[in-house]
């Protein structure tokens, strides 16, 4: 849990414009090795845009993103994934016409560069075992041959996480993984996230639930209107008047 000197991911002056609208406005922060960083902010603050830029879905208008010191700002998303940057989506995007097991296998980096591996390789059993182990840990092993499109909501959420972990990523962005979950499901999710944490160099968790994010995060980054307005330990951040005004005030209106 001790942050090393070189950050895992360094975001510097990141700017994203959509036809004149500024979605990200000079965003800068580091993600340290070993940390679980909570990213919070009201709807429209730019959290998802930030993840989309970092994961290569959108190109940045200006600014840089570096991964372990090398500039990755312009890399296509498949190369970012191969470097070890994984993510889940706020709205579930599983491959619905594939089985649960295939959804995990498709993201396994060991397969990507060896197209016929599953058919002819001797090591196919080990790879399958790794995927089944992941399913075991998110409690989906009994559904391994079901089509992902037939899963219940909570199951689909867990499969999203298992799929994101399949490539053995170093950095994982979880974009509102608890959206639509009840209290019990949220606690199960928290347990899943904790259990996977040692396998990853860092996790970035986007979440609205104050209790859940305070419980899990080492540090918070608060965004509002495309800018970072506060960073720090959860207790300090939630005591900051600007955060209370921008974030908590709005959330009460939402509810």
């Amino acid at each position, binding site marked *: 849990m001790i942050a090393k000197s070189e950050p895992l991911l360094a975001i510097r002056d990141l700017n994203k414009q959509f036809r004149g609208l500024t979605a990200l406005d000079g965003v800068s922060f580091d993600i340290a090795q070993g940390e679980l960083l909570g990213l919070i902010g009201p709807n429209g603050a730019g959290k998802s845009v930030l993840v989309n830029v970092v*994961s*290569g*879905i959108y190109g940045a208008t200006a600014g840089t993103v570096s991964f372990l010191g090398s500039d990755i700002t312009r890399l*296509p*998303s*498949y190369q970012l*994934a*191969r470097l070890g940057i*994984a*993510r889940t*989506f706020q709205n579930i*995007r599983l*491959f*619905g*016409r*594939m089985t649960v097991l*295939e959804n995990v*296998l*498709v*993201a*396994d*980096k060991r*397969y*990507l560069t*060896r*197209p*016929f*591996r*599953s*058919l002819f390789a001797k090591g196919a059993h080990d790879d399958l075992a790794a995927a089944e182990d992941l399913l075991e840990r998110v409690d989906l092993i009994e559904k391994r041959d079901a089509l992902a499109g037939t899963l219940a909501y909570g199951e689909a959420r867990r499969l999203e996480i298992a*799929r994101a972990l*399949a*490539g053995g990523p170093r950095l994982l962005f979880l974009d509102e993984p608890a959206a639509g979950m009840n209290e019990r499901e949220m606690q199960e999710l928290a347990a899943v996230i904790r259990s996977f944490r040692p396998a990853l160099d860092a996790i970035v968790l986007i979440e609205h639930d104050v209790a859940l994010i305070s419980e899990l995060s080492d540090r918070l980054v608060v965004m509002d209107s495309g800018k970072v307005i506060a960073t720090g330990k959860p207790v300090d951040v939630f005591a900051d008047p600007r955060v209370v005004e921008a974030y908590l005030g709005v959330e009460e209106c939402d509810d």
Partner: protein
Amino acid sequence: MLAEQIVNGIVMGSLYALIAQGYTLVFGVLDKLNFAHGEIFMLGGYIGVSSVALGASIPLALLLVMIVCGALGLLVEFVSFRKFRSHDAHITSALSSFAFGLVVLDLVQKSWGTEPVAIELPQTLRVANLEFLGVHFSLVKLSILGIALVLMAALHLAIARTSLGRSIRAVAESATSASLYGINVTRVIQLVFLLASALAGFAGVALAIRTGFASSDVGFTLGIKALAIMAIGGMGDLRGAFLGGLMIGVLEALAFQWGFGQLADTGVWLFMIFVLLVRPTGLFAARSSKEARA
């Protein structure tokens, strides 16, 4: 003989199925139609005929054709689809690939002439046949059918069981998600064009061997008919293209047997229009394509 006609229909149907699977593969990953596909199939016949004329054995000719047509498929992807991958660019890629096909057609007619070119097959091969229950089956036709079935089975296995196939299916469902899980979407799309075009090329030579000549009008007649078969079977569905191909092949053969041969072509197109009206997902597709849901 009725049995012989049905076998003829199945042989022809397997070629339709091969071409239709090419359309459906491309449609699956891009949601777009490759209108150059029929002319690549047509070109396959000519490359085959010329290879054999230059002394190549039939297997070597098949291999050469699949390489040349596969490479041409890569070129079609690059010039007519790469820049127009967005969902708003259906018309652009359709027009561009259609024009590409017309260029291929024109070049073939300038190089080989507009008249069909006969293939030089050894006499022994031409007359060899098998007798089964008193019916004679041409060895050439049965070999064509056998290889076509093996190719389609291999394609099915590759799609269903290999990681390559998983990548293709992932791109078909969502290119964005696929790329976020490390799949090089451009590479997968190239591969699909390569496979589709190589199979079309094989179908082109097979047709030339079966009929005895290569002809420049088959891209329009049979190549575009395979497009109707893809729609009848279910867009984006490999099994649908396979069953649709065999079904149309046999129905056509029966139509000729019973004297309605003149109506076969129009029949296929009317049938497609009918299927699109009453069952837009196609006759055999297990699920609806994005196009059919629209």
